[in-house]
């Protein structure tokens, strides 16, 4: 490891890997259920509608086959949602904010507060119903650099936003 030429002792730096992460609100599970149901109801409706188009003439076997495929996809989607919930967590440090998510690929994003250009708190109808909100952080970085922390309670989101605005002087 090429650490020997550094004047700073890397091992003495604050360790992001040792920061305990707070899981997001349990109510977010309900939001995930809702999102899943709405998505798959739409898919089912579209598929049914498609079957009634004048030129579509599928045999029963084909319809059963496609339906089973869609059902399988829906189940896999639901399973990954369920599995990934356990990993969805965040932490606020003095200088940065950490957000972890994902099961298949676990992603731990860390954004220094000094790089936040602006932030916003959004809530969909479903999120509002459960008193949840999403905190979005925008940096000057490329498209993938923006962080959206989902599953926060409204109070948590407001508190985090307040801290960030105070730290950066940049609000919405």
């Amino acid at each position, binding site marked *: 490891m090429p650490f020997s030429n550094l004047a700073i002792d890397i091992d003495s730096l604050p360790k992001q890997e040792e920061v305990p992460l707070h899981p997001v609100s349990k109510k977010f599970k309900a939001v995930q259920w809702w999102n899943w149901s709405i998505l798959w109801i739409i898919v089912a409706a579209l598929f049914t509608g498609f079957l009634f188009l004048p030129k579509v003439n599928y045999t029963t076997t084909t319809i059963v086959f496609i339906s089973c495929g869609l059902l399988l996809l829906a189940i896999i989607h639901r399973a990954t949602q369920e599995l990934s919930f356990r990993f969805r967590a965040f932490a606020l440090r003095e200088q940065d904010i950490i957000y972890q998510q994902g099961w298949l690929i676990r992603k731990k994003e860390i954004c220094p507060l000094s790089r936040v250009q602006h932030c916003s708190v959004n809530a969909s109808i479903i999120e509002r119903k459960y008193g949840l909100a999403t905190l979005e952080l925008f940096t000057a970085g490329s498209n993938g*650099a923006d962080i959206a922390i989902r599953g926060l309670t409204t109070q948590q989101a407001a508190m985090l936003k307040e801290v960030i605005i105070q730290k950066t002087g940049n609000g919405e």
Partner: protein
Amino acid sequence: MANNTWTQPQRQPAKALIYVFYKTLLTVLKVFAPLLISLLFKDTKKQQNIWEYTAMLIPVLALIAAVVRYRFFKFFINDKQQLVVQRGLFNRRQIILPLEKVQAVNVQQQWLHRLANLSELTFDSPGSTGQEAKITLTTPQANALKQYILAVKNTGYVATNQTVQQPEIKTNRLYDLDPVSLMKLGLTANHIETFFIVLAFGYSLLQNIRTASSDYYDKSVNLLSSYAVYNSVLGVLIIALVVIAVSVIISFIRTVLQYANFSIASVGNRFQIRTGLINTKEVLVPFSKVQYISWRANWLRTKAKMYLLQFHSIGQLQMKEKQKVKVPLTRFEYLPQMLEHYHPLLSNDTPAVKVHPAYVTRKYILVILPLLLVILTVAYFNAFFYWALVLLVYNAVSIYLFRQKFALRFNEQALYIQRGSFGNDELILLWHKIQSVSINQSIYQRKNGLATIHINTAGGGISIPYVTLATANKIVNFALYKTETQAWQ
């Protein structure tokens, strides 16, 4: 010719209409290309008149559209020091670009501009606004407006009497591209890429002919295949050689057109890059706006020791690859000059962080193997697709070489990555230019203590795949320490 009050809403000069017309005509032609091809190849005597009248309408339509565009295009600088561009007849659109947000003003001349002594101004700014606000002016006007904007940026305000005082700026000519180097650059261009473009173009032309007239399509295909398949191996070889020769010539010409008259100078606190034979470009890159610097060479160019260097700065993310200006480094000695205002090259002596061997096996299992199965299945029905195996082998070797070559070194200020597969691709990034980082782990990586790091900057993203989790954590901790103790601008 600075007798222009930029604060008054104004149209572009009347001459700009030529260019607006040209651009509109090009757009219209692109839309109607299939129709025109069908006119050329269509079976004669069928509905000839209707189609020909339609074809004649195209330039007329383009002219009307151009005049409308020209009449409804106005620009000015308002008292808040914002550049305002208004345009559109039905969809009135107003673009507002605060001058303080302008990172760089670019002057471009296409061949038509040069004939009419016109220039097109574009602006680099965070977001896409700067790219949308394009203004065509006479060249003296363009330079005057550019100076005006730069003066506003430097001083914050310019008095309305229009005489812009140019502060003394030190110009230091770094180098020009000499003809021999230009030839070498052209010969070492990415011919394979051009080959595929030529192939794709030929294919789409053939498809267009097919939709227009199946007769011509059959004839052309028969002609091609009579050479290729039925005659001899020699026929195939000749066709292959012709396509390769055409590719080499095209990529050579493309490169020469792009980099002829290339020069780079450091002017004040920015680089000034000029390039192009027919379409010329002038780009200013302020030193402080450079997020990271990369330089790369394809396999041929590594042999000729030539690189194309790129300054990744703010506002370039929305640009198309073609629009980005690259600096040809025909000698490696030029590199320190380019890095002078950023960070010197790190030495190769220290041990490097390498990519874990699992990178290769995982890529083979997750990408190459499934693709192999797909290709074999498709090729089972159509033997032609066995050719795709060549691409697959190429990819497999690339992955192997990538892992071999990847090396990450860093010191307290910067990190330096060497990578590439057949060619070389290197970059240098100052820690404090980082915007955010993430550590990604797939299930396999979690089990084996590996991780992939993604670094985001305002000039683009960089990824460091398959390092040990301990190393990843150390790199990220250090990156955070540097970004949180230093401002990025």
